[in-house]
């Protein structure tokens, strides 16, 4: 076996056999699913139910305010006042003002949550609106039929015209979910595995094994072997995660009672009302992506691009992380200042990703998806919106070529720095000195 193969094998095996790797690979999907299911579950279970006594009704509220058995129940027949409502089993008492005033008052011992308060406000507004309409001469029955018919009447479909004349239903939500998910995954892995490369290089230097190894192989082989070996670790972990998540998702329904699943699905359909927004929305998008096979989404292309940008972005940055690892010494603090110029573009990429998901064709999004420093993250946010509708072929091609070119440049640079840095003890080098090493003959 040739040397670089041996090095890759060692780097891969020592990491994959490590307990931490096994633990994190199996724990993460379980924790993630428990988190998603748990937060949905508790959101449903913990929704507050309030019974409210309504007094001083001038007449039209009773017929226009609807109780909701899962959040607020209104009782218009209550014989209660502010001193005894609690004893009579009410959570609060709502005083409706005399006509002409807008001083509505809700008294309670416990504060009402935002949801319950919002529900009461909506019902009051609705009642007032309906009352005004009736006063202008619209029949109550007409009103009811209108509100019944207009409830959830709209489903907005965005039909995108394809080049070949066919139309395709665009699913912005799905594109958003896939784009955000894959972008953030690349963002996180660049940090995790980049840092792993850096630590590995620094460890070899600290252990003083570097000199032993480079008397057996070229420093460049040692560096590339490490980078490729860790890429393999990353891909293995991804693969296991995907398999585990799907397996757990599909086995979940056997373990959870049917009604809970029903509740979760209900909750998904009427997204509003579940507090704790972003995580759940993310989870819903992912679930949506899993459960709906929508025509017009080119999954093959997305998966190919994901792997390409994952590997390309990783290789582009891993070389730079290796260069840093080779110049630092015992003090891990030294890495911090050197890492700043590398982490900044990655974080910028992430910021641009969030804005390009709203507007995938803005000039910033287009350029950021071509420049190799940010392209792995940003391009993955744009691709699910459609190739070639949103991302023309020339942009995709240019982006890929510049990423490959960028990877070659950073690897060449890192190789030069690495072979000097790995045997240099004492003070850490600055970026300026590293550039000097790189351009020396």
């Amino acid at each position, binding site marked *: 076996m040739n040397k670089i193969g041996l090095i890759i094998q060692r780097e891969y095996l020592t990491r994959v056999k490590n307990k931490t790797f096994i633990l994190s690979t199996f724990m993460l999907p379980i924790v993630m699913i428990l988190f998603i299911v748990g937060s949905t579950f508790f959101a449903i279970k913990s929704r507050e139910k309030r019974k409210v006594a309504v007094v001083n009704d001038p007449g039209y509220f009773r017929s226009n305010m609807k109780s909701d058995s899962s959040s607020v129940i209104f009782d218009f027949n209550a014989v209660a006042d502010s001193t005894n409502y609690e004893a009579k089993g009410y959570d609060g008492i709502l005083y409706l003002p005399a006509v002409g005033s807008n001083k509505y008052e809700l008294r309670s011992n416990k504060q009402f949550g935002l949801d319950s308060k919002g529900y009461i406000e909506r019902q009051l507004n609705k009642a007032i609106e309906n009352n005004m309409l009736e006063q202008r001469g619209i029949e109550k029955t007409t009103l009811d039929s209108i509100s019944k018919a207009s409830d959830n009447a709209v489903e907005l479909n965005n039909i995108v015209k394809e080049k070949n004349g066919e139309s395709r239903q665009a699913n912005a939500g799905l594109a958003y979910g896939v784009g955000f998910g894959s972008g953030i995954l690349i963002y996180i892995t660049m940090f995790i595995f980049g840092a792993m490369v850096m630590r590995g290089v620094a460890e070899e230097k600290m252990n003083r094994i570097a000199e*032993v190894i480079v008397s057996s192989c070229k420093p460049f082989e040692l560096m590339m072997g490490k980078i490729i070996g860790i890429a393999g670790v990353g891909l293995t972990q991804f693969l296991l995660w995907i398999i585990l998540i799907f397996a757990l998702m599909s086995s979940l329904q056997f373990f959870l009672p049917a009604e809970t699943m029903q509740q979760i699905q209900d909750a998904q359909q009427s997204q509003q009302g579940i507090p704790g927004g972003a995580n759940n929305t993310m989870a819903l998008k992912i679930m949506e992506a899993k459960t709906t096979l929508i025509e017009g989404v080119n999954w093959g292309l997305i998966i190919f691009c994901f792997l390409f940008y994952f590997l390309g972005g990783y290789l582009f940055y891993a070389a730079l992380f290796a260069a840093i690892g080779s110049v630092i010494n015992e003090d891990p603090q030294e890495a911090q200042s050197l890492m700043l110029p590398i982490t900044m573009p990655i974080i910028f990429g992430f910021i641009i990703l969030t804005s390009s998901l709203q507007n995938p064709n803005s000039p910033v999004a287009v350029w950021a998806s071509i420049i190799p420093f940010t392209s792995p993250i940003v391009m993955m946010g744009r691709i699910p919106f459609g190739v070639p509708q949103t991302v023309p072929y020339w942009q995709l091609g240019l982006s890929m070529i510049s990423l490959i070119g960028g990877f070659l440049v950073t690897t060449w640079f890192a190789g030069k720095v690495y072979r000097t840095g790995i045997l240099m003890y004492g003070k850490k080098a600055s970026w300026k000195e590293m550039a000097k090493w790189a351009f020396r003959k």
Partner: protein
Amino acid sequence: MQNILEVKNLKKYFATQKAVDDVSFSIAKGSIFGLLGPNGAGKTTLLRMITGIFYPDEGEIMLNGKKFSPENDIGSIGYMPEERGLYKKMKIGEQAIYLAQLKGLSRQEAREKIKEWFVKFEMQSWWDKKVEDLSKGMSQKLQFVTTVLHEPDLIILDEPFSGLDPVNANLIKDEIFRMSKQGHTIIFSTHRMEQVEEICNHIILLNKGKKILDGSVKQVKNDFKENLFRIEFEDQLLPEHTAIHLFQVISKNDHELVIKKNEDFSTNDILQFFITKGLHIHSFNEMLPSLNDIFIRLVEATPRARQFETINA
């Protein structure tokens, strides 16, 4: 005898130091070669060029009569650097196999050889332990095994005995002698002069990047001898015994005399003189300088610490 290594006009300049400045020497096959020099003399840089880790700025290295090319010749060199290290978290057996494979051995071959060495050094129980479980001396032994495992023609050992107790140091010393007899060549870098005297056939001394001494141990000692002799007598020495132009007295006590012979006379003249005086001579020895003395004498003439300078190469 054929030379295994020839170094010609080797130069390596760093930004602030002439680390190795025009050094030439050759090493005979099967010899034990001592590379000496004070701290910062350029020994490590020189060794790194011979092992292909650094490229020389100028000059050439010939290995077995052919120009040294790091890619092809790396397998015939075993290098144990002064700053040594192993992967702490890796199992010892696996690690030794890995390092041997990097030197071009097959997995099977490596495993068999390691087993042999581990038996020889009584390290069999170490196989599944990790390096972090070993003491400094133990990992030193392991490092030595991994260096010589692939039976390289040229074995380079930088301070191989540091951190070893006398028993283990002897174990390794015996291996060095054995391998030298089998035709392996050993470069031995150190500043422990008594070890050099004991082990090496040939030495060079580097100082400030330049070679200042080159020769066999015997020849070097001869070159630096000061015509000192120690004579022991059966009889009591009297003042009249030393009042002679043949020599100067360096030190004396009742039965012993250390003298410096005057250039114009031979040792026989001195013996003759004592015999005619009727003294019974118990022993008569030339006092050759130790390598330690030579080292100190040569190096002391120059500034102790190496100074930084600007090099315009």
